[in-house]
């Protein structure tokens, strides 16, 4: 390799290293505002009352309560260590189910209840035919709430 080419190679590597370090620092400083917060982090007091954030976890089994005659729905978001009660008024996505992933966007009120203005269903990376999904395991994860013929 000629000296000029080597110099240019070092220049390219230098640019790469510089940008990578800068981006790493930037991401590090924004760390707390990227992605959803699991209940454990919220319980630890990281989120101020009234501050908008994304709460994420699983919908606790048996926690979903609909208020008859309205679109209001109460449910509990859990990460199996801590839980946060949440309230939402509106239409839920089809894949919103108990024991299934959820991300709710909204604010905590002063009673520690999460007032959601948007509720999104999170699904995981596992795919399988229906028969397999039913027979695989019982009483765990979301497999005990099969799809209700939606879509």
């Amino acid at each position, binding site marked *: 390799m000629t000296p000029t080419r080597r110099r240019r190679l070092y220049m*390219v590597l230098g640019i790469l290293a510089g940008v990578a370090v800068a981006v790493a620092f930037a991401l590090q400083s924004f760390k707390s505002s990227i992605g959803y917060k699991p209940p454990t982090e919220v319980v630890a007091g990281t989120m101020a009352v009234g501050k908008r954030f994304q709460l994420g976890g699983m919908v606790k089994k048996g926690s979903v309560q609909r208020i008859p005659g309205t679109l209001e729905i109460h449910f509990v978001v859990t990460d199996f260590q801590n839980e946060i009660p949440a309230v939402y008024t509106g239409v839920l*996505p089809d894949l919103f189910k108990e024991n299934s992933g959820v*991300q709710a966007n909204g604010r905590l009120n002063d009673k520690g209840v999460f007032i959601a203005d948007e509720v999104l269903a999170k699904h*995981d990376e596992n*795919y399988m035919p229906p028969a397999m999904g039913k027979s695989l395991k019982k009483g765990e994860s979301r497999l005990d709430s099969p*799809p209700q013929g939606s*879509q």
Partner: protein
Amino acid sequence: MNWVWLHRFGSPPYFYRFAGRWAPWLLGIAVVLLLVGLYGGLVVAPVDYYQSDVYRIIFVHVPASYLALMTYVWMAIAAAVGLIWRIKVAHAVAAACAPAGASFTAVSLATGMIWGHPTWGTYWAWDPRLVSQLFVLFFFLGYIGLRGAIEDRDRADRSSAVLAIVGIVNVPIVHYSVYWWNSLHQLPTLMRSGGPKMPMSMAWPLLVMLGAYTFYFFAIMLMRARAEVLRRERGGAWLREVLATPEARP
């Protein structure tokens, strides 16, 4: 190590002939794989127990997302080679990657939105994976824009190459975003350690579609790079020679 075989690609006449010979074959293979993969994915593969038929968009979405990143890596490497060794063909290859990569990224984002609405309940979320993939699109478009904005070809080559190299920092961020942060987007099903998270009856059409997209990318990249070489070398003596033989005409 003997690099002679690689050096030959730096010669415009050799690259021009090589691309002209191979692009149609690669495109043919891509079309066959695409038909097999689409039939396998949309007809043969079983429905998913949780998402039902909606999951089938995975057969278009995952290969597009993967190819978006792969195209970016190709573009950045070609741009770096062009920058360090001053190889014109390498810059032509980088320039040829950009529109293909922008298209793959656009398909990835569009199919992701179409998938997101019935499953998540929204077309778009300000999620680490979605936003970092949007940045990939911006880098491709920025590369195309920067290249087009500079009149002088050598300066356009060098400036856009630096942009391509800077943007590669974003590629690992896209891939690892779902591991580093709590993301609405699920983890990878196929590109992960410990084997795919789907049975073979669903995985084979996905692998065939990945092959189809990959062959399509190389076919399109060679065709565009060949046209770029043709544009750059217009008036060159070798080109007059090539064009004199009928079977080698573009």
